[in-house]
């Protein structure tokens, strides 16, 4: 059972308007059979301080990452996780979170790795919902567990590994980190903890488009004309060419992956989740420092 999409005028210019819902739509549809609302935040305790009534929590680190290997959970793990939250394969899943939906977009991307069909973001995320005075509760829902099929992750289409990036050099790369990380002044986002990359800089030829450029002041996605100006005119992306986006561990670039794939309609966009914490520590991979993209190395 899939819940109807949000017909809001604001979304009609996007390539896949069905991937977004507004606060009005969500408030009107809360409790609708077939709809599961998921909160996914950077702060692991934020959900506990208050969340959208009926919503369940999925944490990017403790739930979606494999606890041992640097990888995502497998098909059985995902089935157990989301089935336990009352999500079935045909559920409409609406994800929202803090920081302009940064982590919500990451969770959405992981749902997509498992081929979950109907997964959407709440435009503006948690902050906007609260700013608009919409309902919040600390009551924890107790959803009945449902059977979710064990579907193996399908990484190839939307996930890039280091070797994929090396083979991709010469095609567009988007580095969504801060200008300071891009130039090599620092290896972590300003005000973020050191996460261990041995070298600083960026992948040769990558364009620097910090992820938050896609968000308006209220945390919603910018209108399509503004997004076109940033990614097509600014970063030179064009239809038909494969694109890889990366950041530090693949979370901020999930946000950009969402924008490129679902709002602008690019068809071959991959997220390199190894990102700078892998590339910046790997042996014998080319790196460029400074604020210019730099040339593609000859091979």
């Amino acid at each position, binding site marked *: 059972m899939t819940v109807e999409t949000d017909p809001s005028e604001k979304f009609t210019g996007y390539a896949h308007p069905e991937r977004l819902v507004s606060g009005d739509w969500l408030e009107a549809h809360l409790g609708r059979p077939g709809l599961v609302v998921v909160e996914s935040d*950077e*702060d*692991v*305790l*934020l959900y*506990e*301080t208050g969340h959208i009534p009926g919503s369940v929590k999925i944490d990017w*680190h*403790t739930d979606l990452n494999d*606890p041992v290997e640097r990888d995502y959970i497998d098909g059985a793990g995902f089935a157990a996780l989301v089935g336990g939250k009352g999500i079935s394969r045909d559920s409409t899943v609406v994800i929202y979170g*803090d920081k302009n939906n940064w982590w919500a977009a990451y969770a959405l991307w992981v749902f997509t790795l498992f081929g979950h069909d109907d997964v959407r973001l709440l435009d503006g995320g948690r*902050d906007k919902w609260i700013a608009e005075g919409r309902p919040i509760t600390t009551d924890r829902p107790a959803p009945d567990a449902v059977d979710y099929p064990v579907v193996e992750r399908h990484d190839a289409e939307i996930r890039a590994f280091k070797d994929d990036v090396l083979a991709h050099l010469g095609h567009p790369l988007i580095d969504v980190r801060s200008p300071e990380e891009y130039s090599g002044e620092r290896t972590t986002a300003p*005000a*973020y*903890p*050191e*996460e261990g990359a041995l070298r600083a800089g960026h992948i040769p030829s990558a364009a620097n488009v910090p992820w938050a450029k896609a968000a308006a002041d209220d945390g919603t996605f910018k209108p399509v004309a503004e997004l076109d100006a940033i990614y097509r005119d600014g970063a030179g992306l064009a239809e038909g060419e494969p694109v890889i986006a990366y950041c530090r561990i693949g979370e901020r670039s999930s946000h950009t992956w969402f924008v490129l794939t679902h709002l602008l309609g690019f068809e071959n966009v991959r997220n390199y989740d190894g990102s700078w914490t892998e590339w910046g520590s790997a042996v014998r991979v080319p790196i460029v420092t400074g604020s210019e993209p730099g040339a593609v190395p000859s091979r």
Partner: protein
Amino acid sequence: MTESTLPAALAEIRDDFLALEQRERLEMLLEFSNELPELPERYQEHPDLFERVVECQSPVFIFVELDGDTVHLYATAPKEAPTTRGFASILVQGIDGLTVDEVLGIPDDFPNTLGLTQAVSPLRIRGMTALLGRTKRQIRERLTT
């Protein structure tokens, strides 16, 4: 050289965490978060005194006050950052009123002993380690000025 021993108040907090199931540990961290004391009035108008703990993902600021040999730790962090507030609150409540030597003697890996690495993730615990490290550094600076 200060001997590394865990003061009783912090040992009690640690034991309380370890006695709980994983999910209840998060709830206790949230209780700490809600209990982070307000700044005393005399410091509310003085953000300049406070040092930002840049290792934390959310804005958290600390200030150490020495009253003779007694340490007072003050911290502020936004309500939107409950994990960071919880870490700050544990240290504020566990450290307040201790002597300089007792605080400097807190083992640097105390945050890793609370049993939160699974529920919260090691990455996030680093913020608390940084809070403790900066607290000690502020004390050492106060002692030499």
